[in-house]
Structure formats: structure tokens, C-alpha cells
């Protein structure tokens, strides 16, 4: 099992959700997060004076899947979240050791 985590632009969340549903994945956890990448945020002007916006708002997705779904899932996220401009985000894939569905007690493959 793998845990796929993606940091994406907030306005792309609906597109990503649809793309994930289309490939038959049923669960998704979303967190509103802030952060910066290579551009280190950006500057804005207020009454003619600059101020630094260090942390930009992003959305973090977490999806647990079977190993054989990972490639399609990552493709779906990247395809849906891509704008080609700076700040599109990143996808991380982790090994997932164990999973339990709390209601039934099912584990691992049955639980996700």
C-alpha cells in the first residue's frame, strides 16, 4: 500500500477530486496548508510599500491506495492540477505499513 500526498493550488481541488473519482478511487483527505517553494513566496504592495507574503495558501491531499493504483493516481493528480505556471505543487508517495477501518476492524487492503 502507498500513501500519496499532493500539494496543489486550491482552485484545482475540484478538478483533482473529479479526476480521482473517475479512476475509481473512493477516499480523499484534504487539508488547507500554507508554504513556499523555490520562489519563496512573493511581494505585494500596500499603500505603495512592499510587504512579503512568505507562505502561500495551498491544499494538501492524502490518498491511501493499493500499490497497483499508484501510477494511475499520480497521473490523475498531475494531469488535473497542472497549469504549467509556477506554484503548481508537488506529489509525494510513501510506503504505507498498515491501515484499519475503524467501523468494521477490517485491515490493510480491505480497509482502503
Amino acid at each position, binding site marked *: 500500500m502507498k500513501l500519496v500526498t499532493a500539494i496543489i493550488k486550491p482552485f484545482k481541488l475540484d478538478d483533482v477530486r473529479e479526476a480521482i473519482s473517475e479512476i475509481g478511487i473512493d477516499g480523499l483527505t484534504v487539508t488547507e496548508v500554507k508554504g513556499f517553494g523555490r520562489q519563496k513566496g512573493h511581494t*505585494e*504592495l500596500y*499603500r*505603495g*510599500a*512592499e510587504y512579503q507574503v512568505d507562505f502561500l495558501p495551498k491544499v494538501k491531499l492524502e490518498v491511501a491506495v493499493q500499490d497497483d493504483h499508484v501510477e494511475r493516481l499520480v497521473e490523475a493528480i498531475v494531469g488535473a492540477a497542472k497549469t504549467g505556471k509556477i506554484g503548481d505543487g508537488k506529489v509525494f508517495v510513501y510506503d504505507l505499513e498498515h491501515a484499519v477501518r475503524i467501523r468494521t476492524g477490517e485491515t490493510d487492503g480491505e480497509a482502503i
Partner: protein
Amino acid sequence: MEITFELGYAIDTFYFLMCGVLVMWMAAGFTMLEAGLVRAKNTTEILTKNVALYAIACIMYMVCGYWIMYGGDGGISTATPFLEGILSDGATGVAEDAATYAPASDFFFQVVFVATAMSIVSGAVAERMKLWAFLAFTVVLTGFIYPMSGSWTWGGDSVFGLYTLGDMGFSDFAGSGIVHMAGASAALAGVLLLGSRKGKYSEDGKVNAIPGANLPMATLGTFILWMGWFGFNGGSVLALASVESANAVAVVFLNTNAAAAGGLVSALILARILFKKADLTMALNGALAGLVAITAEPSTPSPIQATLFGALGGILVVFSILAFDKLKIDDPVGAISVHGVVGLLGLLLVPFTNPEAATFSGQLLGAATIFIWVFGISFIVWAILKAVMGIRVTEEEEFEGVDMSECGLEAYPDFTISRN
């Protein structure tokens, strides 16, 4: 149709009082504007300042301010300390063709102008001044400084027996100079002695932005001021109950509105050109600048002239705010630019449309008289307050926010706020 004297008296009095109510409501406008443009941690204190200054202005102007301003040779003889003289009937012994109203309504209309002048100061010194030093200054400005310069202008008295501004070609219809520039002059003196907010200017000369906490509130405040200004300028016609004065009132309303619109649009466009983004706070300042610019003479310009005068104010205010920042004169809400710099512009625009009443030399002399008096005496009073009780909170109190150190209350206790 002839209007009876008594009916005219009643209409003029009613109109005067209702315009006073509109100007009184400008206190709410200033309060919301300032509360929106300061940081959340300084909101309760600025609200406290604004309600307290209004109340203090009302008391001080009753005690001696009105008498100083209008009790002299050039003014109305019934003005006395504690106002006993103005409670009488204004209609008795007055010629039938004169514009008349109850004398007590004149006090009400005038007192809300004093409060306006003092409101201008509170925004400029926001976020770092001690509450009680500010209120002590309020007592002096509303009870003495403003009434003195007011006595030389609207009061008709000579300036220490030297010259009389009315004879020198000075005209300020509703107070671009007498109210707005006076308030800004007192504010400038305070800011110079107070210093800038911590973190506003870096040692390398960089100007740092300190964004306001609540722009919906600042926008509401601007609209309230815009509305209140109809009373400020419209009421300054002083009469309504004749064809002539009704026409004048309508033109004043129209021009006041036109100037605000011109100021907002020009500042918005200029901000977009200079900063690549439409800076709302500059647009709001632009609307107020348009209003200040037209206040010195809202009755003689044509509507297009009024719009252009307002637009000129809107452009000037943006450059003025940037220039004051370059000089490291920290004014969180832009009050010195809106009311002072544009107030001067308003005075200088009068001779273009009303050359019978005003000359450039007269306007400059009047502006200089008001500025030197208000700035000079204010500087001395601020300096005394600084020496006696201190005018600035400690660095730690400033960091934590003056809401807690001065009032012990947060404005938004249920929200998480960033402290920067």
C-alpha cells in the same frame, strides 16, 4: 408664493440641525475608517479614542470653545461661555429677509465640526500614542486651538489685531482649511514628536507595509464620511427656506458628490498605474481627498469642474502619502495627506471659480495663518505632554497592542490574530 417668516425660520433651523446630525455621523465614519486601517491589536483603543474625543469636543466647545470662536467683535454677540446667551429666540428683532435659525442650532452645527478636526488627529497618531495623552490634547485643541483660528476665519475677528482674513481675500466655505487642514496640522505636530510605528521604516531606508486589519470596515467608514459630507458642505449654506438658498444647497450636494467620485476614480487609476494593483485603501483616501478639495468652495464650480477638482485631490493624495513615507512621517491612515495637503489644494482652488470672494494671496495668507497657529501651538502642547506624562507607549506595549495596555480589551477576542 411667499413663505412666512416663521415657516422659514423653522425650515432653516430644521435643515441646520439635520445637517449637524449628518456631520455628527462623520464621527462614526472616521471611527470605522481608522479601525479598519489599523491592526487588530490596536482596534479597541482607536474606537475608545474616537468616542471619547467626540464627547470631549462637545463639552469643551460648550464650556469655552464656541464663545472664543464667535464671541468676539466680528462674531455674534450672544455667544457666551457655557452657552447661556444662545438659548434665546433668534427671531426677535431680526430683519425679515435675513437667513435665520435658532441660535442653539448654530452651536450644534459648529460643535460637530470641531469633533471632525480632532478625529483627523486620531488616525495619524494611531497604534502608538498613549490614550490619555491624546485625550489631554483633545481638551486643548477643541477648547482653545481650533476656536482661536476659527475666530479669525468664520468668527470674523482680526488675527491678534494685525489683519482680518475676510478683508484680505480669504474664503473657506465649509472648512478645507479651517477644519481639515487645521486638524492635519495638529496631527503633523503630534506625529513629528511621536515618531513612526516600530517596524514601519527599516534602517536601510526601506518603507515597510503594515496592512490594515479590516478593509470592509474602512470602506464602510469612507461611505459614512461621504454621506456625512452632504451635511458638512450642504449645511454650510446655512439656509434652505428660499428659492435662492434651496438652489445653492442642491448645487452644493451635487458638487460634493461629484468631487468624491472624481477623487476615488483618479486615485484608483493612479494606484493601478503606480503599483500594478488596485489599492483599495488609496481609492478610499482618494474619495475623501475629493471631498476635502471641494469643501472650500462647493457652490460655484460647475459639476465637471467639481469632478476635476476632486480628481486632482485624488491624484495629489496618492503622491502625498508616498512622499510622507519617504520623509519617514508615519501616518497609518493618510490623514495628514487627505486633510492637510489636499485641504491646502482646496483653498487654492477657490479663486478659480469664485474670484469675487477669494484671491490666491488671501488664500495663502489664510492657509499660513491657520497652519502656523495650529501647528505651532499644537507642537508646544504635544511637547509639554511628552515631558509631563509621555505620549508614546513602551516598545513592549506597542508590540502587544495598545488594546491590552490601554483598554484591557481585545476588539476580536474570539479570533486568532497575528502579531507583527
